[in-house]
């Protein structure tokens, strides 16, 4: 029995979809480990399977082969220990207010009585700076605000791993930068383990403590690049450009091949 | 705003035109023929109605009696439900229609321009129940349902008359009424507890009484206080005025049919058996049951009218028979100077 040290253990997983024409191998022989408190970025071009990888970890997709373990337990189905912030703006339940949306997972989990749940939810909402909008409905919020609520909701459950599937992709550059900063603040404060998917090199560098570069067809992790830049990071920080070039080269390799 | 006014104005003009066309159509349907008599063949439009009471009508149809008295008559027999008769006459689709006496008065009260051209029969009607504990009107509880064909039917009125006598209020049982045609009511009464009573008419009355669980608790004549006409045939004003020969032929045809039933019930039964889907023996038996009187003379007309006005079902009472009868019936009733003849007296309920 192998002793698994890290929090997340992804071992030689592959995922094959049975498509219309012929089977599509989305992931092949993907392996990596995560320690607690890491902000692991998975960087890859569109269609390389990074979303699929995240969904496998979340439990939405069943593995064709290999295994994923979280704290020594194999992942079999979705659960509140691996909450996900999805891509796009439609992940909030539109019939619930901001507060109700964040309370909802706590209610499902049974994390206390009404007052306690309200308190906890309120804390996370204020964490993302939306206390003033607690009683608003999602359709009244801007894109950036919606993503913040989604993050608050995902955090409220105190998951073992926070999974984020290109959550800032649909936002404009300024909002994106703001949210990246807020995410880092939250991460540093709570020391949560995050897997963050992106196709944006800059974003990966700013966020990731380690960056897994994926190649496509078949999808696999080509290389894991540690990020030693100090925080806070920004474009122009020493070493930023070099890292950018390195990652770019790794990605470029895929485009030619 | 101006454009919408114009559009609305056009709409109004078109609507008025359409309405007058429609109204004109309804008005025109009444006169089935041209005003000059004899110019075109006379049309007679009658509804086929089923039931023992309509036996004379059935015989008129089978033996083509109208055509016998008016060879060039074009008789149209229309198929429609009994409850549609009055509406069809109002809409100008029928020249002659047969209804109960009470429904006739409801129509007359509302201004229908038709009058009685003939009676068909007096018949035994009765309130029959399948419950042992019910022996008189007093025994009905709120839950008991009493079936009559429809509101304002002759059965309803007879029940109301009895309710006035026994319970002090003609409408005392109105909330117990349930509307069911005779065949359905008979089935319901004989098969289960769904209804408690049925104000039945022949032949259902007879069929129900053959069951030992069913008894009659109220007799029609007893409730009315004397004999009363059950069904009458009414002819519309336009039919009577515009085609007098056809009207006369109709009257004679009915009279001949009634006479056949009374003088030769066997032959009448033979004619009726196929359309009634019964054996001729059974038809003959029904035609001659005690209390059955096929006659063209009506009975109890004023009795019904006066009761219905008092109980609030109609607003006016005829002051003279010519308000409700055509000449042949008026002549049969007569008008005795200085008193009332037995036939005139027979139009009223017996004072008790």
């Amino acid at each position, binding site marked *: 029995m192998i002793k698994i040290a890290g929090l997340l253990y992804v071992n030689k997983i592959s995922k094959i979809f049975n498509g219309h024409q012929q089977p599509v191998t989305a992931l092949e022989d993907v392996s990596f480990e995560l320690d607690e408190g890491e902000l692991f970025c998975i960087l890859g071009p569109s269609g390389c399977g990074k979303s699929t990888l995240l969904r496998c970890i*979340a*439990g*939405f997709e069943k593995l064709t082969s290999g295994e994923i373990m979280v704290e020594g337990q194999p992942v079999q*189905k*979705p*659960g*509140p220990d*691996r*909450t*996900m912030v999805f891509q*796009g703006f*439609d*992940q909030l*339940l*539109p*019939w619930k207010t901001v507060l109700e949306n964040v309370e*909802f*997972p706590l209610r*499902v*989990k049974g994390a206390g009585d009404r007052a306690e749940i309200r308190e906890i939810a309120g804390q996370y909402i204020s964490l993302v700076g939306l206390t003033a909008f607690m009683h608003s*409905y*999602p*359709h*009244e919020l801007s894109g950036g605000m919606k993503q913040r609520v989604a993050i608050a909701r995902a955090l409220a*459950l105190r998951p073992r791993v926070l999974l984020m599937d290109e959550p800032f992709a649909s936002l404009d550059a300024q909002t994106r930068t703001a949210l990246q900063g807020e995410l880092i603040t939250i991460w540093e404060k709570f020391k949560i383990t995050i897997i963050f998917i992106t196709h944006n090199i800059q974003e990966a560098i700013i966020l990731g403590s380690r960056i897994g570069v994926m190649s496509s067809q078949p999808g696999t992790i080509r290389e894991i690049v540690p990020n030693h830049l100090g925080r806070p990071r920004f474009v122009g920080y020493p070493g930023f450009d070099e890292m950018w070039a390195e990652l770019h080269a790794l990605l470029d390799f895929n485009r030619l091949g | 705003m101006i454009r*919408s006014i114009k559009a*609305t104005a056009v*709409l*109004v003009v078109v609507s*008025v035109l359409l*309405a*007058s066309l*429609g*109204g004109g159509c*309804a*008005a025109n349907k009444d006169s089935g023929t041209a005003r000059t008599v004899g110019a075109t063949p006379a049309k007679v439009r009658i509804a086929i109605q089923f039931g023992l009471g309509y036996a004379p009508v059935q015989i008129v149809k089978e033996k083509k009696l109208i055509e016998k008295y008016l060879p060039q008559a074009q008789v149209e027999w229309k198929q429609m439900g009994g*409850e549609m008769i009055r509406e069809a006459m*109002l809409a100008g689709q029928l020249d002659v229609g047969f209804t109960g006496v009470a*429904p006739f008065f*409801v*129509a007359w*009260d*509302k*201004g*229908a321009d038709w009058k009685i051209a003939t009676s068909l029969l007096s018949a035994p009607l009765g309130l029959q129940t399948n419950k042992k504990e019910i022996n008189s009107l007093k025994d009905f509880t*709120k*839950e008991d349902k009493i079936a009559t064909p*429809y*509101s*304002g039917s002759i059965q309803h009125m007879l029940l109301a008359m009895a309710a006035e006598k026994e319970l002090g209020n003609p409408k005392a049982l109105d*909330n*117990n*009424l*349930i*509307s*069911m045609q005779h065949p359905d009511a008979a089935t319901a009464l004989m098969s*289960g507890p*769904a*209804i408690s009573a049925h104000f039945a008419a022949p032949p259902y009355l007879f069929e129900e009484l053959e069951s030992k669980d069913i008894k009659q608790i109220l007799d029609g004549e007893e409730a009315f206080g004397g004999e009363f006409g059950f069904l009458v045939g009414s002819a519309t004003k336009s039919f009577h005025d515009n085609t007098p020969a056809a009207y006369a032929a109709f009257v004679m045809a009915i009279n001949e049919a009634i006479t056949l039933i009374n003088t030769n019930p066997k032959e009448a039964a033979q004619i009726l058996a196929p359309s009634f889907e019964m054996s001729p023996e059974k038809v003959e038996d029904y035609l001659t049951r005690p209390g059955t009187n096929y006659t063209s003379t009506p009975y109890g007309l004023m009795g019904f009218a006066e009761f219905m006005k008092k109980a609030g*079902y109609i607003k006016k009472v005829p002051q003279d028979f010519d308000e409700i009868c055509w000449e042949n019936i008026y002549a049969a009733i007569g008008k005795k100077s200085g008193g009332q003849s037995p036939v005139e007296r027979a139009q009223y309920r017996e004072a008790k």
Partner: protein
Amino acid sequence: MKEIFKKRLMFILLLTALWETVARSGLIKPQLFPSLVSIWQAFTAGMANGELVRNAVFSLYLIILGLVIAMFLAVVCSTFSMLSRTFGNLVDTAVAVMDPLPAIALLPVALVWFGIGQGPIIFVIVHATLWPMILNAVTGFKAVPPIYREVGENIGLSGPRLVLSIMAPAAFPYLLSGLKIGWSRAWRALIAAEMIFGTAGAHGGLGWYIYKQRYLMDISGVFAALIVIIILGVLVEDLVFGFIEKKTIKRWGMTS
């Protein structure tokens, strides 16, 4: 909004004037085409002696009872439809077969099965509403963005709880639309059933009132009842449903 209202009002006023003109002109017999005055008289008489009100209330009572039963059945059937493919296929077939059948055509069958009383009428109402509601519910469920479902699964929901707490509210616009269709169908079926059937026990509804007035040849009374039917229909559709929509799908920004 005000423009439409003004136009509608003008149209109604014109129609009223037209009606009264035709009625009084004698073009059509008064037994067929009563004047508005006599209709109004019949209306006020019916209200004064309570008959119209009682019958209207009874009709509403029947329809609400039937709708509640149908809603319950619809939620159960559509929930199981989503949870089991076999059941879902069964339900789809049932809807395809039963939906085209006009509720009123089932009345004779209902009478034989349920006898006399409220039973057959409730049955007819339930049939009229159940199939469109199931259809809308299932369509609504299928139209729910998969992301909501995944959010639900992510936080640990599954099975009936998932359906009820996430799928049902997400499908609410469809459910509401199904209810609206159901209401309108049920209203029609109810009035028709009452007219054909006669009376359901000691009380009747508006259809029964029409039936009665017809036999008493009170055409003004018939029209008065029709007016009540229209008023109730408009009240429910504009006020009740409008209110519900305001408090739910409009508030949530879920109007399609």
